[in-house]
Protein backbone atom coordinates (compact mmCIF):
# COMPACT_ATOMS: atom_id res chain seq x y z
CA UNK A 1 0.00 0.00 0.00
CA UNK A 2 1.32 3.38 -0.99
CA UNK A 3 1.51 6.08 1.63
CA UNK A 4 -1.74 7.97 1.96
CA UNK A 5 -1.60 11.67 2.63
CA UNK A 6 -4.34 14.12 3.49
CA UNK A 7 -4.03 17.68 2.31
CA UNK A 8 -6.23 20.39 3.88
CA UNK A 9 -6.44 23.57 1.86
CA UNK A 10 -8.05 26.55 3.59
CA UNK A 11 -8.64 29.45 1.25
CA UNK A 12 -11.03 32.12 -0.10
CA UNK A 13 -14.51 30.81 -1.01
CA UNK A 14 -14.45 32.54 -4.40
CA UNK A 15 -11.49 30.41 -5.49
CA UNK A 16 -13.13 27.05 -4.94
CA UNK A 17 -14.25 26.40 -8.48
CA UNK A 18 -10.85 27.23 -9.96
CA UNK A 19 -9.05 25.11 -7.40
CA UNK A 20 -11.30 22.20 -8.05
CA UNK A 21 -10.66 22.37 -11.77
CA UNK A 22 -6.93 22.70 -11.35
CA UNK A 23 -6.80 19.68 -9.04
CA UNK A 24 -8.98 17.66 -11.38
CA UNK A 25 -6.51 18.49 -14.14
CA UNK A 26 -3.65 16.78 -12.30
CA UNK A 27 -5.78 13.77 -11.44
CA UNK A 28 -7.12 14.69 -8.01
CA UNK A 29 -10.79 14.03 -8.47
CA UNK A 30 -12.03 13.11 -5.02
CA UNK A 31 -12.34 15.80 -2.43
CA UNK A 32 -14.51 16.95 0.44
CA UNK A 33 -15.34 20.60 0.88
CA UNK A 34 -16.68 22.47 3.88
CA UNK A 35 -17.51 25.98 4.83
CA UNK A 36 -15.36 27.35 7.66
CA UNK A 37 -14.48 30.67 9.23
CA UNK A 38 -10.91 31.70 9.74
CA UNK A 39 -8.94 34.20 11.67
CA UNK A 40 -5.31 35.13 11.41
CA UNK A 41 -3.51 38.11 9.99
CA UNK A 42 -6.48 39.06 7.84
CA UNK A 43 -8.57 41.75 9.46
CA UNK A 44 -12.25 41.15 9.88
CA UNK A 45 -14.72 43.95 9.36
CA UNK A 46 -17.02 46.23 11.29
CA UNK A 47 -20.76 45.70 11.28
CA UNK A 48 -23.30 48.17 12.63
CA UNK A 49 -26.76 47.33 13.91
CA UNK A 50 -28.94 50.22 15.08
CA UNK A 51 -25.87 52.27 15.77
CA UNK A 52 -24.08 49.57 17.79
CA UNK A 53 -20.79 48.63 16.20
CA UNK A 54 -19.38 45.12 16.26
CA UNK A 55 -15.92 43.93 15.26
CA UNK A 56 -16.45 40.73 13.32
CA UNK A 57 -13.15 38.92 13.09
CA UNK A 58 -14.02 35.58 11.58
CA UNK A 59 -13.75 35.60 7.82
CA UNK A 60 -15.61 33.08 5.64
CA UNK A 61 -13.22 30.54 4.15
CA UNK A 62 -13.55 27.25 2.39
CA UNK A 63 -11.73 24.09 3.41
CA UNK A 64 -10.89 21.46 0.81
CA UNK A 65 -9.77 18.07 2.11
CA UNK A 66 -8.32 15.56 -0.26
CA UNK A 67 -6.59 12.28 0.41
CA UNK A 68 -4.06 11.31 -2.20
CA UNK A 69 -1.52 8.58 -2.80
CA UNK A 70 -0.31 8.34 -6.39
CA UNK A 71 -0.12 12.01 -7.16
CA UNK A 72 2.90 13.51 -5.40
CA UNK A 73 2.12 15.86 -2.54
CA UNK A 74 4.42 18.51 -3.97
CA UNK A 75 2.49 18.62 -7.19
CA UNK A 76 -0.73 19.26 -5.34
CA UNK A 77 0.89 21.96 -3.21
CA UNK A 78 2.33 23.59 -6.30
CA UNK A 79 -0.88 23.58 -8.27
CA UNK A 80 -2.92 24.80 -5.35
CA UNK A 81 -0.54 27.66 -4.68
CA UNK A 82 -0.52 28.66 -8.32
CA UNK A 83 -4.28 28.93 -8.43
CA UNK A 84 -4.86 30.43 -5.02
CA UNK A 85 -2.07 32.94 -4.63
CA UNK A 86 -3.17 36.54 -4.90
CA UNK A 87 -0.41 37.90 -2.69
CA UNK A 88 -3.00 39.54 -0.42
CA UNK A 89 -3.26 38.64 3.24
CA UNK A 90 -5.89 35.96 3.64
CA UNK A 91 -4.86 33.63 0.82
CA UNK A 92 -4.92 30.82 3.33
CA UNK A 93 -2.93 27.81 4.41
CA UNK A 94 -2.27 24.25 3.34
CA UNK A 95 -1.72 21.53 5.93
CA UNK A 96 -0.42 18.04 5.20
CA UNK A 97 -1.23 15.00 7.36
CA UNK A 98 -0.45 11.34 7.36
CA UNK A 99 -3.37 8.93 6.81
CA UNK A 100 -3.24 5.42 8.26
CA UNK A 101 -5.89 3.82 6.14
CA UNK A 102 -8.73 4.47 3.73
CA UNK A 103 -11.85 2.53 2.80
CA UNK A 104 -14.17 2.88 -0.16
CA UNK A 105 -17.53 2.03 1.31
CA UNK A 106 -19.14 1.04 -1.96
CA UNK A 107 -16.63 -1.73 -2.70
CA UNK A 108 -14.98 -2.40 0.63
CA UNK A 109 -11.57 -1.71 -0.92
CA UNK A 110 -8.98 -0.62 1.63
CA UNK A 111 -5.75 1.34 1.43
CA UNK A 112 -4.50 3.14 -1.65
CA UNK A 113 -6.92 1.49 -4.05
CA UNK A 114 -9.77 2.89 -2.00
CA UNK A 115 -9.04 6.32 -3.37
CA UNK A 116 -7.81 5.55 -6.85
CA UNK A 117 -10.75 6.06 -9.16
CA UNK A 118 -10.66 4.24 -12.45
CA UNK A 119 -12.46 6.35 -14.95
Amino acid at each position, binding site marked *: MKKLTKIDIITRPGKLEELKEALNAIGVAGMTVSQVYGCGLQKGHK*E*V*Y*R*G*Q*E*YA*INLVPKVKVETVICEIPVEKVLEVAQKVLKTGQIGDGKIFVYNVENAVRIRTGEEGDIAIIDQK
Partner: protein
Amino acid sequence: MKKLWSTMLTTLMLVAMMVPVAFAADAEAATKIDSGDTAWVLVSAAMVFIMTPGLGFFYGGMVRSKNVLSTIMQSFFIVALISVEWVLFGYSLTFSGDVSGIIGNLDKAGLAGIGVTTILDNGTIPEFAFVAFQCMFAVITPALITGAFAERIKFSAFVVFSSLWAIFIYNPMAHWVWGGGWLAKLGALDFAGGLVIHILSGVSGLVFCLMVGKRRGYGKSPIIPHNIPMIVIGATLLWFGWFGFNAGSALGANGLAASAFIVSQIAAAGATVSWVVAEWIYNGKPTLFGAASGCIAGLVAITPAAGYVTPMPALIIGLVGGVVCYFSVAVVKAKLGYDDSLDAFGVHGVGGTWGAIATGLWATTSVNEAGADGLFYGNPDLVVTQLISVVTAWVFAIVGTFILVKLIGLFMQIRVDEADEVAGVDISGHGESAYGQSIVAGHPVIGGQDVNL
Protein backbone atom coordinates in the same frame (compact mmCIF):
# COMPACT_ATOMS: atom_id res chain seq x y z
CA MET B 1 -78.77 47.45 2.20
CA LYS B 2 -79.28 49.04 -1.18
CA LYS B 3 -82.99 48.38 -0.89
CA LEU B 4 -83.16 50.05 2.45
CA TRP B 5 -81.39 52.99 0.99
CA SER B 6 -83.73 53.41 -1.93
CA THR B 7 -86.82 52.86 0.16
CA MET B 8 -85.58 55.54 2.46
CA LEU B 9 -84.81 57.73 -0.49
CA THR B 10 -88.27 57.42 -1.85
CA THR B 11 -89.87 58.13 1.46
CA LEU B 12 -87.55 61.02 1.82
CA MET B 13 -88.57 62.43 -1.49
CA LEU B 14 -92.20 62.21 -0.63
CA VAL B 15 -91.51 64.03 2.58
CA ALA B 16 -89.40 66.51 0.70
CA MET B 17 -92.36 67.56 -1.29
CA MET B 18 -94.21 68.69 1.79
CA VAL B 19 -91.90 70.03 4.48
CA PRO B 20 -88.58 71.80 4.91
CA VAL B 21 -86.34 68.88 5.58
CA ALA B 22 -82.73 69.91 5.92
CA PHE B 23 -82.34 68.66 9.47
CA ALA B 24 -84.56 65.65 9.16
CA ALA B 25 -82.57 64.43 6.19
CA ASP B 26 -79.37 64.87 8.12
CA ALA B 27 -80.61 62.78 10.96
CA GLU B 28 -81.91 60.11 8.64
CA ALA B 29 -78.67 59.87 6.75
CA ALA B 30 -76.73 59.44 9.93
CA THR B 31 -78.48 56.23 10.69
CA LYS B 32 -77.60 54.44 7.47
CA ILE B 33 -74.72 52.17 6.70
CA ASP B 34 -72.56 53.57 3.94
CA SER B 35 -71.13 50.74 1.86
CA GLY B 36 -67.99 52.65 0.89
CA ASP B 37 -67.20 53.57 4.47
CA THR B 38 -67.88 50.01 5.55
CA ALA B 39 -65.65 48.59 2.84
CA TRP B 40 -62.87 50.90 3.93
CA VAL B 41 -63.15 50.10 7.63
CA LEU B 42 -63.31 46.36 7.01
CA VAL B 43 -60.25 46.49 4.79
CA SER B 44 -58.52 48.66 7.34
CA ALA B 45 -59.27 46.11 10.04
CA ALA B 46 -57.69 43.39 7.92
CA MET B 47 -54.70 45.63 7.27
CA VAL B 48 -54.25 46.39 10.96
CA PHE B 49 -54.62 42.68 11.66
CA ILE B 50 -51.61 41.88 9.50
CA MET B 51 -49.48 44.35 11.44
CA THR B 52 -49.22 42.12 14.49
CA PRO B 53 -47.83 39.03 12.77
CA GLY B 54 -45.79 41.54 10.77
CA LEU B 55 -44.43 42.84 14.05
CA GLY B 56 -43.56 39.25 14.88
CA PHE B 57 -41.32 39.11 11.82
CA PHE B 58 -39.93 42.58 12.45
CA TYR B 59 -38.94 41.50 15.94
CA GLY B 60 -38.17 37.90 14.98
CA GLY B 61 -35.53 38.91 12.47
CA MET B 62 -33.74 40.97 15.11
CA VAL B 63 -33.15 38.20 17.61
CA ARG B 64 -30.67 35.36 17.44
CA SER B 65 -31.83 32.29 15.56
CA LYS B 66 -32.27 30.34 18.77
CA ASN B 67 -35.03 32.73 19.89
CA VAL B 68 -36.84 33.57 16.70
CA LEU B 69 -39.81 31.30 17.28
CA SER B 70 -40.40 32.46 20.82
CA THR B 71 -40.31 36.05 19.59
CA ILE B 72 -42.71 35.52 16.71
CA MET B 73 -44.90 33.43 19.00
CA GLN B 74 -45.37 36.33 21.38
CA SER B 75 -46.84 38.49 18.63
CA PHE B 76 -48.73 35.72 16.91
CA PHE B 77 -50.31 34.26 20.00
CA ILE B 78 -51.30 37.67 21.28
CA VAL B 79 -53.51 38.08 18.23
CA ALA B 80 -55.55 35.16 19.49
CA LEU B 81 -55.32 35.89 23.19
CA ILE B 82 -56.33 39.53 23.05
CA SER B 83 -59.01 38.97 20.42
CA VAL B 84 -60.73 36.66 22.86
CA GLU B 85 -60.24 39.12 25.71
CA TRP B 86 -61.53 41.93 23.50
CA VAL B 87 -64.82 40.35 22.54
CA LEU B 88 -65.39 39.02 26.05
CA PHE B 89 -64.63 42.20 28.05
CA GLY B 90 -62.28 44.61 26.37
CA TYR B 91 -64.60 46.18 23.84
CA SER B 92 -67.26 46.73 26.43
CA LEU B 93 -64.88 48.14 29.04
CA THR B 94 -63.51 50.54 26.46
CA PHE B 95 -66.46 51.62 24.40
CA SER B 96 -69.66 50.82 26.25
CA GLY B 97 -70.86 53.71 28.37
CA ASP B 98 -68.67 55.51 30.86
CA VAL B 99 -68.18 55.04 34.59
CA SER B 100 -66.91 58.34 36.02
CA GLY B 101 -64.69 59.01 33.02
CA ILE B 102 -62.50 56.10 34.10
CA ILE B 103 -63.77 52.98 32.40
CA GLY B 104 -66.68 51.64 30.38
CA ASN B 105 -69.30 49.23 31.66
CA LEU B 106 -69.89 45.56 30.91
CA ASP B 107 -73.12 45.98 28.96
CA LYS B 108 -71.51 44.82 25.75
CA ALA B 109 -69.47 42.01 27.30
CA GLY B 110 -69.43 39.12 24.84
CA LEU B 111 -70.60 41.67 22.25
CA ALA B 112 -74.07 41.42 23.77
CA GLY B 113 -76.63 43.56 22.07
CA ILE B 114 -74.68 44.07 18.86
CA GLY B 115 -76.24 42.56 15.78
CA VAL B 116 -75.86 42.52 12.05
CA THR B 117 -77.96 45.64 11.71
CA THR B 118 -76.47 47.60 14.60
CA ILE B 119 -74.91 50.80 13.36
CA LEU B 120 -72.07 52.51 15.14
CA ASP B 121 -73.19 55.55 17.14
CA ASN B 122 -72.53 58.69 15.10
CA GLY B 123 -71.14 56.49 12.39
CA THR B 124 -71.99 55.13 8.98
CA ILE B 125 -70.67 51.62 9.50
CA PRO B 126 -71.91 48.47 11.23
CA GLU B 127 -70.81 48.39 14.86
CA PHE B 128 -69.26 44.96 14.20
CA ALA B 129 -66.87 46.61 11.76
CA PHE B 130 -65.80 49.00 14.50
CA VAL B 131 -65.46 46.13 16.99
CA ALA B 132 -63.17 44.31 14.56
CA PHE B 133 -61.15 47.39 13.68
CA GLN B 134 -60.59 48.29 17.34
CA CYS B 135 -59.87 44.65 18.17
CA MET B 136 -56.77 44.85 16.00
CA PHE B 137 -55.59 47.93 17.91
CA ALA B 138 -56.06 46.18 21.23
CA VAL B 139 -54.08 43.26 19.84
CA ILE B 140 -51.04 45.11 18.58
CA THR B 141 -50.46 47.24 21.65
CA PRO B 142 -49.28 44.55 24.06
CA ALA B 143 -47.43 42.91 21.15
CA LEU B 144 -45.28 46.02 20.82
CA ILE B 145 -44.10 45.60 24.41
CA THR B 146 -42.64 42.17 23.68
CA GLY B 147 -39.69 43.77 21.89
CA ALA B 148 -38.41 45.03 25.22
CA PHE B 149 -38.13 41.68 26.96
CA ALA B 150 -37.43 39.42 24.00
CA GLU B 151 -35.12 36.41 24.37
CA ARG B 152 -35.51 35.90 28.11
CA ILE B 153 -39.12 35.56 29.27
CA LYS B 154 -41.18 32.49 30.07
CA PHE B 155 -44.16 32.05 27.79
CA SER B 156 -46.51 31.46 30.71
CA ALA B 157 -45.48 34.73 32.38
CA PHE B 158 -45.88 36.51 29.08
CA VAL B 159 -49.42 35.20 28.66
CA VAL B 160 -50.46 36.28 32.13
CA PHE B 161 -48.80 39.68 31.84
CA SER B 162 -50.30 40.43 28.43
CA SER B 163 -53.80 39.50 29.55
CA LEU B 164 -53.66 41.60 32.69
CA TRP B 165 -51.98 44.50 30.93
CA ALA B 166 -54.68 44.50 28.25
CA ILE B 167 -57.44 44.60 30.83
CA PHE B 168 -55.95 46.92 33.42
CA ILE B 169 -53.76 49.24 31.37
CA TYR B 170 -54.92 49.27 27.76
CA ASN B 171 -58.66 49.21 28.20
CA PRO B 172 -58.81 52.11 30.68
CA MET B 173 -56.38 54.28 28.71
CA ALA B 174 -58.21 53.62 25.45
CA HIS B 175 -61.43 54.52 27.22
CA TRP B 176 -59.98 57.78 28.53
CA VAL B 177 -58.93 58.90 25.06
CA TRP B 178 -61.36 57.30 22.63
CA GLY B 179 -64.21 55.98 24.73
CA GLY B 180 -65.37 59.34 26.03
CA GLY B 181 -63.26 59.24 29.19
CA TRP B 182 -61.59 62.11 30.97
CA LEU B 183 -58.77 62.75 28.52
CA ALA B 184 -61.25 62.97 25.67
CA LYS B 185 -63.21 65.49 27.71
CA LEU B 186 -60.02 67.40 28.37
CA GLY B 187 -59.54 67.75 24.62
CA ALA B 188 -56.49 65.54 24.17
CA LEU B 189 -55.96 64.64 20.52
CA ASP B 190 -54.79 61.19 19.58
CA PHE B 191 -55.97 60.28 16.12
CA ALA B 192 -54.79 56.71 15.81
CA GLY B 193 -52.97 55.93 19.02
CA GLY B 194 -49.80 57.81 19.87
CA LEU B 195 -50.73 57.91 23.52
CA VAL B 196 -52.87 54.84 23.80
CA ILE B 197 -50.68 52.58 21.75
CA HIS B 198 -47.12 53.76 21.33
CA ILE B 199 -46.33 55.62 24.54
CA LEU B 200 -48.21 53.09 26.60
CA SER B 201 -46.47 50.09 25.10
CA GLY B 202 -43.04 51.66 24.75
CA VAL B 203 -42.87 52.92 28.31
CA SER B 204 -44.30 49.68 29.67
CA GLY B 205 -41.59 47.84 27.77
CA LEU B 206 -38.90 50.01 29.31
CA VAL B 207 -40.17 49.31 32.82
CA PHE B 208 -40.44 45.59 32.17
CA CYS B 209 -36.94 45.27 30.72
CA LEU B 210 -35.45 47.22 33.59
CA MET B 211 -37.20 44.96 36.07
CA VAL B 212 -36.27 41.73 34.38
CA GLY B 213 -32.64 42.59 33.71
CA LYS B 214 -30.33 42.31 30.74
CA ARG B 215 -29.89 39.32 28.50
CA ARG B 216 -26.87 37.18 29.38
CA GLY B 217 -23.86 38.32 27.41
CA TYR B 218 -25.40 41.68 26.57
CA GLY B 219 -22.60 44.14 25.93
CA LYS B 220 -20.00 41.36 25.98
CA SER B 221 -20.68 39.11 23.06
CA PRO B 222 -22.35 40.33 19.89
CA ILE B 223 -26.12 39.92 19.92
CA ILE B 224 -26.88 40.63 16.31
CA PRO B 225 -29.96 40.14 14.12
CA HIS B 226 -30.13 36.68 12.63
CA ASN B 227 -32.17 37.61 9.57
CA ILE B 228 -32.44 41.14 8.25
CA PRO B 229 -34.67 40.28 5.28
CA MET B 230 -37.15 38.96 7.86
CA ILE B 231 -37.01 42.32 9.62
CA VAL B 232 -37.84 44.00 6.33
CA ILE B 233 -40.75 41.65 5.66
CA GLY B 234 -42.06 42.72 9.05
CA ALA B 235 -41.49 46.40 8.37
CA THR B 236 -43.23 46.05 5.02
CA LEU B 237 -46.31 44.48 6.54
CA LEU B 238 -46.31 47.10 9.28
CA TRP B 239 -46.04 49.98 6.83
CA PHE B 240 -48.77 48.47 4.64
CA GLY B 241 -51.07 47.88 7.57
CA TRP B 242 -50.41 51.33 8.99
CA PHE B 243 -52.43 52.85 6.17
CA GLY B 244 -55.41 51.03 7.62
CA PHE B 245 -54.34 51.99 11.09
CA ASN B 246 -54.12 55.74 10.44
CA ALA B 247 -56.41 56.31 7.49
CA GLY B 248 -58.90 53.74 8.73
CA SER B 249 -59.22 55.75 11.94
CA ALA B 250 -61.28 58.23 9.92
CA LEU B 251 -63.94 55.49 10.10
CA GLY B 252 -64.98 56.29 6.57
CA ALA B 253 -63.65 56.57 3.04
CA ASN B 254 -63.52 60.32 2.81
CA GLY B 255 -61.24 63.30 2.50
CA LEU B 256 -59.99 62.89 6.04
CA ALA B 257 -59.01 59.29 5.35
CA ALA B 258 -57.16 60.33 2.21
CA SER B 259 -55.41 63.08 4.12
CA ALA B 260 -54.38 60.72 6.91
CA PHE B 261 -53.14 58.30 4.26
CA ILE B 262 -50.89 60.76 2.48
CA VAL B 263 -49.46 62.32 5.64
CA SER B 264 -48.65 58.84 6.93
CA GLN B 265 -46.71 58.08 3.79
CA ILE B 266 -44.90 61.40 3.99
CA ALA B 267 -43.88 60.97 7.62
CA ALA B 268 -42.75 57.39 7.06
CA ALA B 269 -40.70 58.48 4.07
CA GLY B 270 -39.21 61.44 5.92
CA ALA B 271 -38.17 59.36 8.90
CA THR B 272 -36.67 56.64 6.72
CA VAL B 273 -34.53 59.20 4.97
CA SER B 274 -33.54 60.99 8.17
CA TRP B 275 -32.66 57.83 10.12
CA VAL B 276 -30.50 56.56 7.26
CA VAL B 277 -28.79 59.90 6.81
CA ALA B 278 -28.17 60.16 10.56
CA GLU B 279 -26.49 56.78 10.72
CA TRP B 280 -24.61 57.42 7.49
CA ILE B 281 -23.08 60.48 9.13
CA TYR B 282 -22.70 58.98 12.58
CA ASN B 283 -21.65 55.38 11.85
CA GLY B 284 -20.30 55.83 8.35
CA LYS B 285 -22.73 53.52 6.55
CA PRO B 286 -26.39 53.64 5.57
CA THR B 287 -28.12 50.38 6.51
CA LEU B 288 -31.22 48.51 5.51
CA PHE B 289 -31.94 47.79 9.15
CA GLY B 290 -31.80 51.54 9.68
CA ALA B 291 -34.21 52.17 6.83
CA ALA B 292 -36.65 49.59 8.20
CA SER B 293 -36.38 51.12 11.66
CA GLY B 294 -36.77 54.63 10.30
CA CYS B 295 -40.06 54.00 8.56
CA ILE B 296 -41.52 52.59 11.75
CA ALA B 297 -40.27 55.60 13.72
CA GLY B 298 -41.96 57.92 11.26
CA LEU B 299 -45.20 56.00 11.32
CA VAL B 300 -45.20 56.00 15.10
CA ALA B 301 -44.63 59.75 15.17
CA ILE B 302 -47.42 60.57 12.73
CA THR B 303 -49.94 58.22 14.35
CA PRO B 304 -51.44 60.67 16.87
CA ALA B 305 -51.30 63.50 14.33
CA ALA B 306 -52.46 61.71 11.19
CA GLY B 307 -55.98 63.16 11.18
CA TYR B 308 -55.01 66.68 12.19
CA VAL B 309 -52.00 67.85 10.19
CA THR B 310 -51.24 68.88 6.62
CA PRO B 311 -48.49 67.40 4.42
CA MET B 312 -45.55 69.70 5.10
CA PRO B 313 -45.79 69.49 8.89
CA ALA B 314 -46.05 65.73 8.42
CA LEU B 315 -42.72 65.83 6.61
CA ILE B 316 -41.16 67.66 9.54
CA ILE B 317 -42.72 65.26 12.04
CA GLY B 318 -41.23 62.38 10.09
CA LEU B 319 -37.79 63.88 9.61
CA VAL B 320 -37.48 64.76 13.29
CA GLY B 321 -39.00 61.43 14.36
CA GLY B 322 -36.39 59.46 12.45
CA VAL B 323 -33.47 61.35 13.94
CA VAL B 324 -34.81 61.39 17.49
CA CYS B 325 -35.51 57.66 17.51
CA TYR B 326 -32.15 56.91 15.92
CA PHE B 327 -30.29 58.75 18.64
CA SER B 328 -32.39 57.25 21.36
CA VAL B 329 -31.54 53.69 20.28
CA ALA B 330 -28.00 54.26 19.04
CA VAL B 331 -26.67 56.66 21.62
CA VAL B 332 -28.93 57.12 24.61
CA LYS B 333 -29.63 53.42 25.17
CA ALA B 334 -25.94 52.55 24.97
CA LYS B 335 -25.14 55.36 27.40
CA LEU B 336 -27.78 54.39 29.92
CA GLY B 337 -27.03 50.72 29.52
CA TYR B 338 -30.50 49.19 29.86
CA ASP B 339 -31.33 46.23 27.63
CA ASP B 340 -34.51 47.04 25.71
CA SER B 341 -33.81 44.10 23.40
CA LEU B 342 -35.51 45.32 20.25
CA ASP B 343 -36.06 48.98 21.14
CA ALA B 344 -39.73 48.94 21.98
CA PHE B 345 -39.11 52.02 24.09
CA GLY B 346 -36.59 53.72 21.82
CA VAL B 347 -38.93 53.59 18.84
CA HIS B 348 -42.46 53.49 20.23
CA GLY B 349 -42.03 55.26 23.54
CA VAL B 350 -39.86 58.02 22.16
CA GLY B 351 -41.53 58.28 18.76
CA GLY B 352 -44.99 58.28 20.32
CA THR B 353 -44.05 61.02 22.73
CA TRP B 354 -42.66 63.15 19.95
CA GLY B 355 -45.78 62.57 17.86
CA ALA B 356 -48.15 63.48 20.67
CA ILE B 357 -46.30 66.74 21.27
CA ALA B 358 -46.05 67.46 17.54
CA THR B 359 -49.81 67.09 17.34
CA GLY B 360 -50.02 69.95 19.80
CA LEU B 361 -47.81 72.01 17.52
CA TRP B 362 -49.27 71.43 14.06
CA ALA B 363 -52.87 70.28 14.47
CA THR B 364 -55.28 72.39 12.48
CA THR B 365 -59.03 72.45 12.24
CA SER B 366 -58.68 73.01 8.52
CA VAL B 367 -57.90 69.31 8.33
CA ASN B 368 -60.36 68.13 10.93
CA GLU B 369 -63.12 70.20 12.47
CA ALA B 370 -63.41 67.67 15.26
CA GLY B 371 -59.83 68.44 16.24
CA ALA B 372 -58.26 71.67 17.40
CA ASP B 373 -55.66 74.19 16.34
CA GLY B 374 -52.14 73.71 17.61
CA LEU B 375 -49.41 76.11 18.66
CA PHE B 376 -48.41 77.07 15.14
CA TYR B 377 -52.03 77.82 14.36
CA GLY B 378 -52.25 80.20 17.26
CA ASN B 379 -53.43 77.98 20.07
CA PRO B 380 -50.83 77.27 22.76
CA ASP B 381 -53.44 75.50 24.93
CA LEU B 382 -53.36 72.36 22.85
CA VAL B 383 -49.69 71.77 23.62
CA VAL B 384 -50.49 71.89 27.30
CA THR B 385 -53.31 69.41 26.89
CA GLN B 386 -51.05 67.15 24.88
CA LEU B 387 -48.32 67.35 27.52
CA ILE B 388 -50.80 66.48 30.23
CA SER B 389 -51.92 63.46 28.29
CA VAL B 390 -48.34 62.41 27.54
CA VAL B 391 -47.42 62.58 31.22
CA THR B 392 -50.57 60.67 32.07
CA ALA B 393 -49.67 57.89 29.64
CA TRP B 394 -46.09 57.69 30.95
CA VAL B 395 -47.11 57.61 34.60
CA PHE B 396 -49.90 55.13 34.02
CA ALA B 397 -47.59 52.84 32.04
CA ILE B 398 -44.82 53.02 34.62
CA VAL B 399 -46.98 52.48 37.67
CA GLY B 400 -49.24 49.92 36.03
CA THR B 401 -46.47 47.80 34.58
CA PHE B 402 -44.45 47.96 37.77
CA ILE B 403 -47.36 46.69 39.83
CA LEU B 404 -48.27 43.97 37.32
CA VAL B 405 -44.73 42.63 37.02
CA LYS B 406 -44.24 42.63 40.78
CA LEU B 407 -47.56 40.90 41.26
CA ILE B 408 -46.92 38.24 38.66
CA GLY B 409 -43.47 37.67 40.13
CA LEU B 410 -45.14 36.61 43.35
CA PHE B 411 -46.92 33.75 41.68
CA MET B 412 -44.66 32.56 38.91
CA GLN B 413 -41.19 32.69 37.44
CA ILE B 414 -40.90 35.45 34.85
CA ARG B 415 -37.42 34.99 33.47
CA VAL B 416 -36.20 31.71 31.99
CA ASP B 417 -33.44 29.74 33.71
CA GLU B 418 -29.88 30.42 32.68
CA ALA B 419 -29.41 27.10 30.91
CA ASP B 420 -32.63 27.65 28.97
CA GLU B 421 -31.57 31.14 27.99
CA VAL B 422 -28.23 29.82 26.74
CA ALA B 423 -29.84 26.98 24.80
CA GLY B 424 -32.38 29.41 23.39
CA VAL B 425 -36.01 29.86 24.29
CA ASP B 426 -37.19 28.16 21.10
CA ILE B 427 -35.95 24.77 22.17
CA SER B 428 -36.26 25.20 25.90
CA GLY B 429 -39.63 26.93 25.97
CA HIS B 430 -41.36 25.67 22.85
CA GLY B 431 -39.58 22.47 21.85
CA GLU B 432 -39.12 23.69 18.30
CA SER B 433 -36.24 24.73 16.05
CA ALA B 434 -36.89 27.47 13.53
CA TYR B 435 -34.66 26.11 10.83
CA GLY B 436 -34.75 22.35 10.86
CA GLN B 437 -31.55 21.07 9.37
CA SER B 438 -31.49 17.86 7.43
CA ILE B 439 -28.28 17.02 9.25
CA VAL B 440 -29.81 17.15 12.69
CA ALA B 441 -30.53 13.51 13.04
CA GLY B 442 -32.79 12.03 15.63
CA HIS B 443 -35.78 9.77 15.52
CA PRO B 444 -39.53 9.95 16.02
CA VAL B 445 -40.72 9.01 19.45
CA ILE B 446 -44.09 7.38 19.40
CA GLY B 447 -46.14 6.66 22.45
CA GLY B 448 -43.22 7.68 24.62
CA GLN B 449 -40.90 4.98 23.33
CA ASP B 450 -38.72 4.50 20.30
CA VAL B 451 -40.25 2.43 17.54
CA ASN B 452 -39.40 1.45 14.04
CA LEU B 453 -42.59 1.63 12.04
